[in-house]
């Protein structure tokens, strides 16, 4: 069809695909080079996880073996044994991160709305103040709060650790939600209200569906920030609240490299899983973390 049309058309310039540019070979070469560099970049980012994986299945892994002489699941079996410390630590970590995220979401939802939808004097100040806990060293926050929490008997307890985890988690959640609300057109809510929906119905049928992806992202970040927390848990938990990072650190000081490596992968796995789920299912695009807006 196209060719017959060209035959019948006046035989002047036949259109060359303009995208190829003047030196199609050059452009293709550069695109290829870029792809190689991207591949290298991604490999570099993955590389540090490789030795962990190798050493976790190594038995008698002596220098200068690159691949362990014997591959075995000893370390994995040890950390996954029914009585292993891993399980209570996993439960503690999940309960902690889950509780912190949930509490943070409930508190942050109205705040995110305020920062995202309203222009008011002092907004920049509030944003900066919210960022402050993210900027101040966690160890400083922990040491500062230790005395007060000790006096009310919250050190060494899950409740105390939940409280201090809120310090870094809440700002992240608020700022992600503020970004979400900034993209929400409040006229939709006004439309629903003018059609007779009450506040609860408006939230359920209009607001919630609109902010759901942002809510999921906020929850995701909140969970991960809490999950990876070490200093706050260490100082306030005082050895009573043993999360996976705490357990992992203890194991690293212990000396069984294979077990430590296996535990490290175990600690990172849920985060990786969540990231994968998030990347594909929820947002589908890069979301800047840390509320940098």
């Amino acid at each position, binding site marked *: 069809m196209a060719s017959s049309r060209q035959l019948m*058309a006046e035989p002047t310039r036949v*259109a060359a*695909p*303009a*995208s190829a540019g*003047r030196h199609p070979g050059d452009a293709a070469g550069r695109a290829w080079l870029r792809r190689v560099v991207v591949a290298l970049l991604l490999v570099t980012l993955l590389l540090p996880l490789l030795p962990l994986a190798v050493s976790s299945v190594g038995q008698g892994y002596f220098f200068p073996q690159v691949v362990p002489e014997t591959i075995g699941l000893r370390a994995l079996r040890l950390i996954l044994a029914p009585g292993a410390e891993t399980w209570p630590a996993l439960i503690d970590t999940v309960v902690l991160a889950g509780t912190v995220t949930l509490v943070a979401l409930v508190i942050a939802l109205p705040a995110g709305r305020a920062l995202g939808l309203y222009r008011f004097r002092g907004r920049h100040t509030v944003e900066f103040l919210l960022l402050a806990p993210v900027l101040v060293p966690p160890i400083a926050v922990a040491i500062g709060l230790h005395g007060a929490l000790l006096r009310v008997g919250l050190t060494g307890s899950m409740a105390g650790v939940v409280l201090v985890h809120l310090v870094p988690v809440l700002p992240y959640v608020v700022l992600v939600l503020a970004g979400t609300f900034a993209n929400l057109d409040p006229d939709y809510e006004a439309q629903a209200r003018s059609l007779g929906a009450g506040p609860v119905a408006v939230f359920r049928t209009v607001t919630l569906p609109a902010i759901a992806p942002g809510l999921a992202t906020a929850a995701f970040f909140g969970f991960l920030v809490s999950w990876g927390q070490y200093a706050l848990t260490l100082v306030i938990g005082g050895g009573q609240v043993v999360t996976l990072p705490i357990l992992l650190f203890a194991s690293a000081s212990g000396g069984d490299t294979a077990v430590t490596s296996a535990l490290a992968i175990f600690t990172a796995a849920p985060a990786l899983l969540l990231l994968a789920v998030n990347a594909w299912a929820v947002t589908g695009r890069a979301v800047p973390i840390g509320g940098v807006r």
Partner: protein
Amino acid sequence: MTGIDLRRLSKRYGDDVAVDGLDRRIPPGRITALLGPSGCGKTTTLKLIGGLIPATEGTVDFDGQNMAGVTAERREAVMVFQDHLLFPYLTVGENVGFGLRMRGVGRRVRRGQVDTMLERVGLPGLADRRPQELSGGQRQRVALARALIIDPRVLLLDEPLTNLDPHLRDGMRELILEVQRDLQVTTVVVTHDQEEATVLADRVALLFDGRLAQVGTPRDLHDRPATASVARFLGSPNVLAGIRRGERVATPVGELTVPHGALTDGPVQVVIRPEAVVVAPSGGPNIVHGTVRAVRDLGARARLVVDVEAASITLDARPDALLALAVGSEVSLRLPAESLWAMPADHAAPDGGVGIDHEHAAAPARPSTDVPESPPPESPPIDRRSRTDIRRP
């Protein structure tokens, strides 16, 4: 002065066709408007001319030179964007001098030219301000100055008046006309507004769905639309299907004398603009009788919808008609023969889409090469007749 030739220019995004085989010459030193509804491919065409996006097929020639290998930055076809896109981190003066700086012009020379250009667009002394401190109208002027300072071969304006408040539009429009007249730069203006196109452009190219629907002077499009959809887009709701026999056309409102337009016997469509209809005529041909269905006060005029037989006629009358004609009253209308325009009937697009398919069937090349070209405005009506005859397959 640079003449532009679009040669079978197409842009597709996947299966979406944004621009579909445009084949057209854009005359040098004039203002040409690309007019059309939103999403018709106007801005895409502008970006194709400027080299900002690659064409899927076809080429853009400047003065007969193929521009395919000339990147946007070396094309000297400057685009002024709808949102002005002034660089927020530069001052007004630095913005205006940007193109000169990219060409290695020294700071001192730049400064002088910038001041001159700012004066030219009516913003003297604002060089050290930030774009954020300016009003919308001023920003648009700065964007224009930024484009003109490099003395471009082609000036591409994307909806230059759309983002302005109505009271600012006149000034901006006059400025564009003035600098264009002085510099004689080939200018392409994209707009969705017929009035804007009419005031700004020497020639208007009407685009529907990435194809040219009609090209001509603003007057041509207004008085002699090529198709029913062109007529409707340009504000003539009165499109009557009819059967022509000689000078007479049988329409739902009665038999009318239609001396102009498509003269082939058989199915045609007849259009008349609302303001051409005469209310309560003293006599003459083409008189119809109907009942007023609706009356709207449009301020400067009154719009009436009159049911005539099975159809209705929309017309604009003087405001005093509001007093004389109430809904339900009987009224006589004259459809002056010289204002009636016959068009070929749409076969392919009964809804009034871009249908001139009876011509395409015999056309060897792409449909867009058959864009109805209206005659120059100075041609006498007899030309139209002969042209229409020639076009007949």
